[in-house]
């Protein structure tokens, strides 16, 4: 086992010795600083207040909204237009949240807490996509890149099993992804905190589990949302990893994975909206955090379903990559 960790540390060194690895981390930090600054600048220049007024009879207002939303939900459920049904999940979530608020007397925050603010901002700015982009690039470099640079044969003719070498590469990539994720969280959190205040650090938030509301600390919800985003990144990384091991071409692995990330997943999601079998396709269900932040897009799907389907496909991709890598002549 200690041998394996040596191998991981070797792969880690190789990864970090690449200039692009450091550059991507710096770009990530810059993007966040610029994005949060622009957001602050916009708010200041348009005199958008940090706080919203919550009226004393918020319960009645919320109740009225809920009644309307329930009628809307009924209509949607009977609707034949499949595109319209996309908002069912989001409505269900809003209704559940509203009812939970009224039942447990949770007054909406007049000033959004820093956890929720940073999570919302991270989701809207789709940091997850940028992280996925960077990790896909480094994963392809680490696996397929070694083939094109000819160094893979230097690694294979060592006292290690091929599967160990490949696993070490995957682990090193995952570690890099985690570094990007944690950096993103910290920089984003600190920037937004500095601009809008670190208020409500100990607050609690409602979390929609696709069937009910749980009331947990805002910090925990942030961790859950970031964690789900990371799992989504992992789905694409595993695809890049498998294509790298199979095709041995860095450009094919990077290009194809990015295509799937930015275009393919959208196409598959459309298929899932229009066809009932679409939800069983890979990638359509892999936007995990949207299940808790926006509700399910596809009727009858839950977070657990999304995670399950994606896990099955990831295992298949992984297995294909390992199998080809172990068998092939280099």
């Amino acid at each position, binding site marked *: 086992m200690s041998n394996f960790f*040596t*191998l991981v*540390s*070797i792969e880690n*060194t*190789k990864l970090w*010795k*690449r*200039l692009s690895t450091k550059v991507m981390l710096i770009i990530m930090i810059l993007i966040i600083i610029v994005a949060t600054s622009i957001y602050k600048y916009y708010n200041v220049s348009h005199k958008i207040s940090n706080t919203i007024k919550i009226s004393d009879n918020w319960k009645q207002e919320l109740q009225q909204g809920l009644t309307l939303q329930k009628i809307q939900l009924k209509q949607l459920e009977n609707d034949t237009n499949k595109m319209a049904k996309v908002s069912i999940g989001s409505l269900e979530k809003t209704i559940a949240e509203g009812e939970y608020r009224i039942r447990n007397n949770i007054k909406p925050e007049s000033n959004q807490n820093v956890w929720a603010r940073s999570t919302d901002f991270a989701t809207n700015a789709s940091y997850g996509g940028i992280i996925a982009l960077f990790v896909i690039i480094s994963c392809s470099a680490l696996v397929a890149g070694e083939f094109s*640079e*000819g*160094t893979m*044969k*230097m690694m*294979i*003719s*060592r*006292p*290690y*099993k091929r599967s160990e070498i490949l696993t070490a590469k995957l682990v090193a990539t995952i570690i890099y992804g985690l570094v990007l994720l944690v950096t993103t969280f910290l920089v984003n959190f600190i920037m937004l905190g500095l601009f809008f205040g670190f208020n409500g650090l100990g607050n609690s938030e409602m979390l929609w589990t696709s069937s009910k509301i749980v009331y947990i600390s805002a910090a925990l919800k942030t961790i859950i949302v970031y964690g789900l985003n990371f799992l989504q990144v992992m789905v694409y990384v595993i695809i890049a990893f498998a294509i790298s091991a199979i095709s041995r071409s860095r450009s094919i692995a990077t290009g194809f994975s990015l295509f799937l990330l930015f275009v393919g997943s959208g196409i598959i999601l459309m298929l899932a909206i229009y066809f009932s079998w679409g939800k069983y396709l890979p990638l359509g269900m892999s936007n995990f955090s949207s299940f808790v932040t926006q509700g399910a897009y596809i009727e009858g799907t839950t977070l657990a379903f999304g995670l399950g389907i994606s896990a099955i496909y990831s295992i298949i991709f992984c297995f294909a990559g390992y199998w080809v890598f172990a*068998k092939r*002549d*280099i």
Partner: protein
Amino acid sequence: MRNEVLKIENLKKVIGKRTIVSDISVDLKEGEIFGFLGPNGAGKSTTIKMIVGLSKITEGNIYVGGCSVKEDFKGAMRNIGCIVENPDMYKYMSGLDNLKIFAKIYKDVDAARINEVIKIVDLEKAIKDKVKTYSLGMKQRLGIAQALLHSPKLLILDEPTNGLDPAGIKEMRELLRKLSSETGLTVFISSHILGEMQQICDRVGIIHKGKIITIKSVEELLNLAQDGDKTVLILKSDNNEKAASLLTNVNISSNILADGVHIETTKDRVPEIVTTLTSAGIGVLGMDRQESQSLEDVFMKLTGEDK
């Protein structure tokens, strides 16, 4: 009795329906330098790739230091240091970083050993530069350095003189000689340049169309090249024309070329030639045997291919 470092048994490689190599059997003893010779596409690289685990063995087996590549891959690889095809290293890192990375793989390789190896290949000056700035010769030396790090029993070099200048080739030859005599390192070198092997190797195996044609010591092979008693002498004298006509008179064929008179004859007639020439008053300045019995000729003879 010296230990067997590399043992290849009836090795066979089939890709699809094509047999790339078959019936390859080689035994290498400790401290031996073995040349693996053959034209491009004969199966040299395929054989080497099977030894170092890059290619799967279809049939047969390979033992390195007693460990089977098939059954005890890790054990076998611990005994091997190799450069396959090109000395590809991580170009974006310095030579030293490359060595540090490979050193981590083996338990007993410390900083002192890394420095020792750098000294052996004489790369002290450039070791902190990025590999992408290296010349091919430097890359070859760095490649040898990484292959020597863990003091393997067997060093495998695939076409190591490719792209090296004559001085580089000579340097490498001296280095390999030194390593094998001082540390008992066994070296397996492949090449298609026969002249080089002649000077480096103790024994040579010739592979052609996927099969080993012969394995012999360099000396045995050179003897094989001599066609019976026949020999070619190069005569330098003060009157080449007269010498040539004199020889024709005694039924010895000769040719006047730029470097002298080439005389084709058998060994037992050499004294006769000398007497004929000197008694006719020709000043013999020198008479050498032509060094034609190179591996090249042997190779051509064995493979039945004309130049």
